[in-house]
């Protein structure tokens, strides 16, 4: 995907520049942008080291376990048809918490395990597991609606590009995330209420 996107951007850019007489600027843009990427990474090195350090403490202190108690009723509400003792519940909870905390590296493995467990659940139900179940659709929609509460990258970028208050958007970001997640959940609830296949 990215290969096409990247090649497309460069090819369109250079061709458009050639036709509009901006070709001289292309060289400068390429050189400046590459330098700028490195300057930006210097800021990112600081911010990400700090934030990941903090998250390491949280992980070691068992914050994922502590938070999953709060999340359990939510998971039950969103996935009422998963048997209570099924391991899918646990993977889903871990994935959601990792997403909320912005621990992408922990979220993906748990998410893949959750999908696998949901696939097994379909087999147990005697359904074709190559067709997404209601649970799979819901799980992915909730995931894609973005759960991350604090996007530290954006704060770092804002600080690098001279924002007077880089964290100004944090509250708004949380509200927007909640809005998108609620809309996603409502849609799933609406879809899942229909006749089962």
């Amino acid at each position, binding site marked *: 995907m990215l290969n096409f*996107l990247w090649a497309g951007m460069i090819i369109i*850019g250079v061709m458009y520049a050639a036709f509009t007489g901006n070709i001289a600027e292309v060289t400068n843009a390429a050189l400046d942008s590459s330098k700028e990427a490195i300057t930006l990474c210097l800021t990112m090195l600081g911010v990400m080291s700090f934030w990941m350090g903090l998250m390491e403490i949280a992980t070691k202190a068992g914050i994922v376990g502590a938070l999953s108690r709060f999340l359990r009723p939510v998971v039950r509400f969103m996935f009422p048809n998963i048997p209570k003792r099924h391991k899918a519940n646990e993977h889903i909870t871990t994935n959601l918490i990792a997403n909320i905390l912005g621990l992408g590296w922990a979220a993906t493995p748990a998410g893949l395990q959750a999908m696998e467990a949901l696939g097994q659940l379909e087999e147990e139900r005697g359904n074709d597991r190559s067709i997404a179940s209601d649970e799979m659709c819901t799980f992915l929609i909730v995931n894609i609606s973005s759960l991350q509460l604090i996007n530290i990258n954006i704060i770092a970028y804002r600080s690098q590009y001279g924002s007077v208050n880089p964290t100004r958007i944090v509250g*708004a970001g949380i509200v927007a995330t909640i809005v998108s997640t609620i809309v996603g959940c409502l849609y799933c609830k609406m879809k899942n209420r229909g006749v089962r296949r």
Partner: protein
Amino acid sequence: MNTNLFVYISDFIVPSVIILIVAYGVLEKVKVYDEFVKGAKKGFSTVIKIMPTLVGLMVAVGILRASGFLEFLSGQIGKVTDYIGFPSQLVPLSIVRLFSASAATGLVLDIFKEYGTDSRIGLIASIMMCCTETVFYTMSVYFMAAKVKKTRYTLTGALLATVAGIVASVWLAGRILL
């Protein structure tokens, strides 16, 4: 007044998270500083890993910007989006965001440079990045791993949530604009 309160809360969130985590760690008898350093190393190597990606994408976006194509595209799209009050400069970002997080980052940085981080457009872009995800990437990774072929209503739901997030971003940016 309302606006100020909102920003005021934002100012408190990151410091609150910091103290909560450190205090909780101390209570749970974690060697907080040792763990911090361990995590910081991970963060450091993560950034080093994404560095080449960022160079590649920022160069691509830089070329696209310098060629005048981004302006041309926004101008064309703006004829439509101006009716609904959505800044046309954010249309390329909204679309790219569905496919690639890093390419979207390249566009956001370009927006910060062109219009400023605290302009209306800069704020909307910031909030949008917080409340949206790479729809197509996530779907393909998860469904491919689970060997699912028919994805039913996932895409519709995901796009609906994304649109809701974008609408909310536009509205919220207006609330916290200086």
